[in-house]
């Protein structure tokens, strides 16, 4: 997890869980994986989803949980996933 943070010292474990829940809720296809989708477990998956979210919100695509990425994740929002299910 710490490799996902730009400055691990400043980021709390709580942010990691916020990010994990956010990406699971808004950037994960529900209802099992679509046929033919190769599932990559672990860190690559999270990094890939972070990049997807950063691209959607027009943030710098780093794959890291930097300050501006965490700021967007903490904003109140709609519960419909950004990658359409």
């Amino acid at each position, binding site marked *: 997890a710490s490799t996902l943070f730009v400055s691990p010292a400043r980021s709390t474990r709580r942010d990691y869980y916020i990010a994990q829940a956010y990406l699971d809720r808004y950037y994960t296809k529900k209802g099992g994986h679509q046929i033919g989708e190769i599932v990559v477990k672990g860190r690559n998956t999270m990094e890939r989803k972070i990049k997807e979210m950063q691209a*959607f919100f027009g943030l710098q695509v780093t794959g890291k949980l930097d300050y501006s990425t965490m700021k*967007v994740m903490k*904003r109140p*929002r*709609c*519960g*419909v996933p*950004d990658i*359409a299910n």
Partner: protein
Amino acid sequence: YRLFPGEPKWKKNTLTYRVSKYTSSMSHAEVDKAVDMALQAWSNAVPLNFVRQNTGEADIMISFELGDHGDSYPFDGPRGTLAHAFAPGEGLGGDTHFDNAEKWTMGTNGFNLFTVAAHEFGHALGLAHSSDPSALMYPTYRYQHPYGFRLPKDDVKGIQALYGPRKAVTERPNVPHIPPHKPSDPDICDSTSSFDAVTMLGKELLFFKDRIFWRRQVHLAAGIRPSTITSSFPQLMSNVDAAYEVTEKGIAFFFKGPHYWITRGFQMQGPPRTIYDFGFPRHVQQIDAAVYLREPRKTLFFVGEDYYSYDEVKRKMEKDYPKNIEEEFSGITGKIDAAVEVNGYLYFFSGPKAYKYDIEKEDVVNVVKSSSWIGC
């Protein structure tokens, strides 16, 4: 803008909606108002009509829920996720849920219900999230002032990609421009189109057009002012097809598509009903005009080139109808948009003309501009 995979959309243009569970942080009336205005934000841009229901299963079921509420998308308490909605479809399709753990408001001291509802109804009509930060369909909350709200361009493009533009207001796909108080405004008076519906209501005459209606005393053409239909008839919202009042009973009937509402004065008397209650054949989907005749206590309904006669005493359609309008009402040309009886004369509104019809003589005795009735 983005559409959902497969681009699900509603196949009909009249959708029913119902608020099945309210929140404790706003009054029912405030919730209803916010919901109506949020739906109207979309119906301004596309040819969709929304009819409120107070019971049973509606296309769009709206409710305030807590935590896990049975649709495999549990809410998460204050902030975070505010609401969600399902893409068009049967059953859960179109349904819209708000997190009741939030503080909902008509203003800014909490989450503005109009703002979130307008966004969610975008999903319920078939829009996914937009990555345009100025779009209503952007995923994160950004307060929108309900009054004077204008649907952003990105959302207009998205929703019209699904349903096409609403003809009458294509040029202005936003909240309607309320004409200035003096009805002599050229935009109103020069309009070549007629009224959608005209009726007596108590001692007043009401003229309906798009989202606006004008009220006037029968014998006084002064002080005529436009109001929005939603301000007095929230359920009707806009584009009333026909209306009439049964004077003796003090009740009025308002028609939109295959539905009608009953009012006592300005008070709605219950949910919409279907026009087949009157005995119309199923191929009739909409009424063009309706007028109650006090003498025989019958109501004439105008549908295309035909008209029907309904006996208000026996509460049933008369036999040997429909009949052809031009054969019966000589001198009236074109489709009848609206009709009303005033002081024993029948007035037919057809496009920019209003025909004064003498029932005794069975003939037209005068023709004026339709808009002259609202002071033009």
